[in-house]
Each structure stands twice: as structure tokens, then as C-alpha cells.
């Protein structure tokens, strides 16, 4: 097998969604949680109710509407199934405790401690605004004057689900009113985080990094060059402490340039 074929084989195994049908399990779980509406004939393999829902008696339609609304919220919010952590875990007994502790460690700037709560084979959700390197992101964000502000709670449709409002709050995002907050989800298995869906930082990172590159090209090239570093973020620079420090140092100037 030559280099090209080996690379292709690795790409095949790197498929992030090898089995899309498992994501449809969410719909199955939701239906189970809504067992009082069991009589409704819903084909849980599909989401489009126009095709799969048998019209119920008129007296039940309001219940179906409520159930459908909740299901859409749950699917749209990306609520994920999580299991309780194992006994004796020093962090806490609930997935929410694990996630809260993870963010406490993140905000303390202790990437090693934070990553100790993350499965080595964890998965990271996020497409358009994908984060390629969680440890790097923790180190990247540490130099900024701010923190990851989160409010986590068990999701409403069953024990073990964790949902968080997650916002990267820095002096810059606050001054500029940049929306980086949104509901995000975690999967915690046996006390370890196995899946994280991070929020969208690009409205801040993109313009800030562009400003930095324009304001101090040499400094930017020295601190945020992708050369020799992998992986790079979606913006083409690495998420690491060095680049984070450089960008954080220009945050105030960036805000001032926008009149913020």
C-alpha cells in the first residue's frame, strides 16, 4: 500500500460519524420518556412528522403537539444521553458534577487536570466552528481576561442527561456584546466526559486574529504560525498557549479599534 492509499485508509477510519443511525437514537429515547403518549404511532426512525406520524384522535392532538415541541427542542438542543459516573469518583456522583468540575479546572488554567476528566478517546462535536484540539483550546483561552461561564444541569428528559449554557466570557466579548453563548451538551460515561459540543467562538476569534495579524504581522507569524504545529484551528492557526497569549495581549487594542 503506497502513501496515498495509506492516507486514504486512515481517512476512512477517521470518519466522525461512521454510523449516523445512532444519532437517531435520541428520538427513540425521547419517545420512551414520553410514555404517557405511547398510543401515538410514531416511527422513530424518522424525524419528519408529516411522513411518519399517524394522526391521533382530535382530543389528543394538543398532547401530540406538546410532545413534538419538546422533542424538537430536545433534538435541536443536542441533549445527549449520559450515564452516571462510577462509585468512588472523587469529583462527584452526578454527570453534572463532572462537567462542573471540568470547567472549574479549565478556568483554573490547569489543562492536565481538566483533561483528566476527559476520556482519551473523547469525541468533539461541532462542525462549522469546529475545535480540533481540546487541550490546546484550554491552554489557548487561559491567557485571556475571562473564563468559561457555564450553567449545567441534568437535561429534563431523563436521568443522566447533561445540558449546559456555555459562554466564553472575556473582556472583549463582554465589551463588544459578542454572542458566544448557547446550549451545549455533554456525554459523561463512568465519571468521564466522552463527548463535548463546544459553542461558537468564531465571531470573536476570527476578527481578533485578523486584527492581530494586521496590527503585528511579525508577532502573529511568530506566535500563531501553523508551521510545525498540528492540528490547526478552523482559522488556520493553532489553539495553544503561545498563540492565545499573543492574541490576548491585543484584545484591548482590538476592542478599542472597534470603538467598544
Amino acid at each position, binding site marked *: 500500500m503506497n502513501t496515498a492509499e495509506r492516507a*486514504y485508509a486512515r481517512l*476512512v477510519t477517521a470518519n466522525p460519524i461512521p454510523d449516523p443511525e445512532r444519532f437517531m437514537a435520541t428520538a427513540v429515547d425521547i419517545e420512551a420518556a414520553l410514555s404517557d403518549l405511547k398510543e401515538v404511532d410514531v416511527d422513530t426512525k424518522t424525524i419528519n412528522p408529516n411522513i411518519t406520524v399517524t394522526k391521533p384522535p382530535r382530543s389528543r392532538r394538543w398532547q401530540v403537539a406538546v410532545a413534538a415541541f419538546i422533542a424538537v427542542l430536545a433534538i435541536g438542543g443536542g441533549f445527549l444521553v449520559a450515564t452516571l459516573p462510577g462509585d468512588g469518583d472523587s469529583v462527584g456522583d452526578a454527570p453534572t458534577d463532572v462537567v462542573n468540575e471540568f470547567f472549574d479546572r479549565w478556568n483554573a488554567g490547569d489543562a492536565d487536570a481538566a483533561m483528566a476528566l476527559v476520556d482519551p478517546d473523547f469525541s468533539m462535536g461541532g*462542525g462549522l466552528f469546529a475545535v480540533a484540539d481540546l487541550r490546546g483550546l484550554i491552554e489557548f483561552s487561559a491567557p485571556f481576561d475571562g473564563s468559561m461561564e457555564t450553567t449545567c444541569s441534568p437535561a429534563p428528559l431523563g436521568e443522566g442527561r447533561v445540558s449546559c449554557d456555555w459562554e466564553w466570557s472575556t473582556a472583549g466579548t463582554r465589551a463588544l456584546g459578542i454572542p458566544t453563548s448557547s446550549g451545549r451538551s455533554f456525554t459523561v460515561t463512568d465519571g468521564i466526559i466522552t463527548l463535548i459540543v463546544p459553542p461558537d467562538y468564531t465571531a470573536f476569534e476570527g476578527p481578533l486574529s485578523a486584527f492581530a495579524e494586521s496590527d503585528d504581522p511579525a508577532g502573529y507569524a511568530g506566535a500563531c504560525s501553523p508551521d510545525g504545529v498540528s492540528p490547526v484551528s478552523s482559522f488556520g492557526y493553532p489553539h495553544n498557549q503561545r498563540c492565545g497569549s499573543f492574541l490576548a495581549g491585543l484584545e484591548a487594542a482590538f476592542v478599542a479599534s472597534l470603538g467598544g
Partner: protein
Amino acid sequence: MARDDNLFRDMYAEHYPAVLGYCLRRAHRDNAPDLVSDVFAVAWRKRATLPEGEFVLPWLFAVASRTIANHRRTLRRRLKLTEKVRGLSEGRQPGPELQVIQRSEDAAVIDAVRRLRPNDREAILLSAWEGLSAPQIAARFGISVDAAEKRLSRAKHRLGAELTRTEKKTNVTPRVAKEGGTR
């Protein structure tokens, strides 16, 4: 029309997972179900003229590609700051928007595929992740099968070169990557 409706139902049941997978790999998972619904809404409107057999799926992927692109444009419009700093943001939009639900040991190959040209990247991902054949990829791009095969071959060679270059520079080993430190 009843025949078209039945064909659409069958098509929907058969291809929903594949289209969901396509969207999950390229858009945020929170948005994927809505994007899939939009794709099938287009298919529903055009159900009388849908391609047949193995060429339905590439057609759906082409619609999904445009739907995701429209979705991204909508997102960008919503970001007031992006508007405010339009000049600064030129050339600084997120790069190849791949879904990155990934294990850390896959980071190098994901990183390499990000560096490919857009058409090469789409072709190789349609083959590697969506399982399309060369004739299906040809249908997706509206090119000949021969051209699709060449594009795929070129993409594989470029991917190999990028991956080799990345790993030589970073000396990444799977063991280190698996510890969560992908650098």
C-alpha cells in the same frame, strides 16, 4: 402523483441516515436535523424529477451541500460583529468546515484533508465517508466518470503528501495523540 409520493417515501426511508450523516459531518450537530429536513423538502418539491437508483444519493448530497452553504451564509449574516468588522474578517472565515467529532488520533489526517482544495476534499470525503462510487461522485459534480476517478486519485495523492508533511513536522505519534494532547 401517488406513485411519486410512494417513491419519495421509499427514498426518504432509505437515504435519511446517509443524508443525516453527511450533514453531521459538515455542520453542527444541533443544526443537522433541520438541514436534513430542508434537503428532503427540496427533494419533495422535485419528487417528480428525482434521479433514479444509485444517483439519488449524490443528488441529495449536492442539495445538502448547497443547503449547508446557505445555512452558513445565514449564520454569518446574524453575526453583527462580522458585519462590523467585515474588512478585518476577509479571508478569516472558518476554513474547511468539516465536522470534527473526532478522536484525537485522527487529528493529523483531518488536518491534512483540511488543506486540500475544496473539490478534491469533497470528492475524497464522498468516497471515504459517504461511500460513493466514482460514477456517483461524477454525478455529484456533473463531470465524467473518468474525470471523477482522476479527481479522486489526485485527492488521494495530495492527502498522502499533506499527511506525510504534517507528521514529519510535528512528529505526532498515536500514543501522544491519544492522551488528549494532539500536539
